[in-house]
């Protein structure tokens, strides 16, 4: 074998992975290791591979991902805090040929926007709701969210969340799966390569189901917030596996009949 030189491999014909063309060249403002970046990237890859770039309309939330429209080269509209599903409803009804999604954090989707989430899913609007659950309000400094785990410390539950006074974590995916309007509800992750590949498959199913007008698709990504959890990204991902996954188990919760 000839002397190994990576330069011999780095040629266009040997390319196996590059950043999606649906992503802009802007540097994402997220903290190092934040799952929002990986979730954006995975969604961008699906939009590229499914050739949806010119007919996708995304609705951005309020939260750390508020500036998502700077990173995906598609049409996007910013919603008021929690109202993304309402706006997505209007967009999809007016332009039913578009692929419409919302991208929302847990404060956005499960606290201020609970009503919009529940009623949009109940009506079975033909949209995808992509829900990034990091168990906390990231953008505003790590306050407790409805999804914060029992015992988990946050800036507004400094002694840990206590069920008696603060209630228990709200499991949004399980909740919306009970509603007749949802056709596909699944929980995924983005901290491992296998997890990202599974999320990609789930997103492609959501595209297919939306094309067939089958109802609301709800994909939860159990994610991290290294900064507010006050951990390194690698430690945060480990903590997530040990603590978030038992409370929010990964996998499909509801699939269309016959799938």
């Amino acid at each position, binding site marked *: *074998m*000839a002397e*190994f030189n*990576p330069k*011999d*491999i*780095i*040629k266009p014909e*040997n*390319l*196996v*992975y*590059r*950043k*999606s063309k649906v*992503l802009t060249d802007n*540097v*994402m403002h*997220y*903290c*190092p*290791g*934040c*799952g*929002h*970046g*990986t979730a954006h*990237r995975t969604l961008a890859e699906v939009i590229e591979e499914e050739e949806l770039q010119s007919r996708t309309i995304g609705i951005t939330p309020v939260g750390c991902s508020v500036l998502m429209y700077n990173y995906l080269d598609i049409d996007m509209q910013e919603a008021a805090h929690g109202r993304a599903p309402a706006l997505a409803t209007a967009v999809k009804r007016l332009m039913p040929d578009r692929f419409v999604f919302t991208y929302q954090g847990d404060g956005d989707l499960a606290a201020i926007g609970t009503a919009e989430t529940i009623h949009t899913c109940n009506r079975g609007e033909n949209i995808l709701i992509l829900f990034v659950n990091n168990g906390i309000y990231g953008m505003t400094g790590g306050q407790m969210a409805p999804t914060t785990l029992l015992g988990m410390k946050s800036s507004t539950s400094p002694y840990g969340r206590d069920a008696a006074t603060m209630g228990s974590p709200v499991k949004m995916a399980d909740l919306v799966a009970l509603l007749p309007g949802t056709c596909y509800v699944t929980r995924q992750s*983005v*901290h*491992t*390569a296998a997890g*990202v*590949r599974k999320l990609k498959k789930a997103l492609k199913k959501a595209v297919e189901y939306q094309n067939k007008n089958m109802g609301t698709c709800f994909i939860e990504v159990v994610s991290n917030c*290294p900064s507010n959890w006050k951990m*390194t*990204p*690698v430690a945060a*991902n480990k903590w997530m596996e040990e603590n978030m996954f038992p409370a929010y188990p990964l996998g499909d919760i509801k699939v269309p009949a016959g799938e």
Partner: protein
Amino acid sequence: MAKVKGAVVIDTEKCKGCEVCVVTCPTQTLALSHEVNGKGYNYSYSANPEACIGCANCAVVCPDGVITVYKMKVE
């Protein structure tokens, strides 16, 4: 026997040094540098390039999409 060899190109100025790629790599190819980039992060680099198999796992988990992967068969 044909073997698969890989190589990664990392946009080190855009890397945030999160280390997620380093712990994901099945062949311990990557490491964080001692030097920092313009943003002050210890960026990821190919410390052990002969080990890379081009599986792309590092690129798939990189939140910032700064890794490009190449792969070829060698005799």
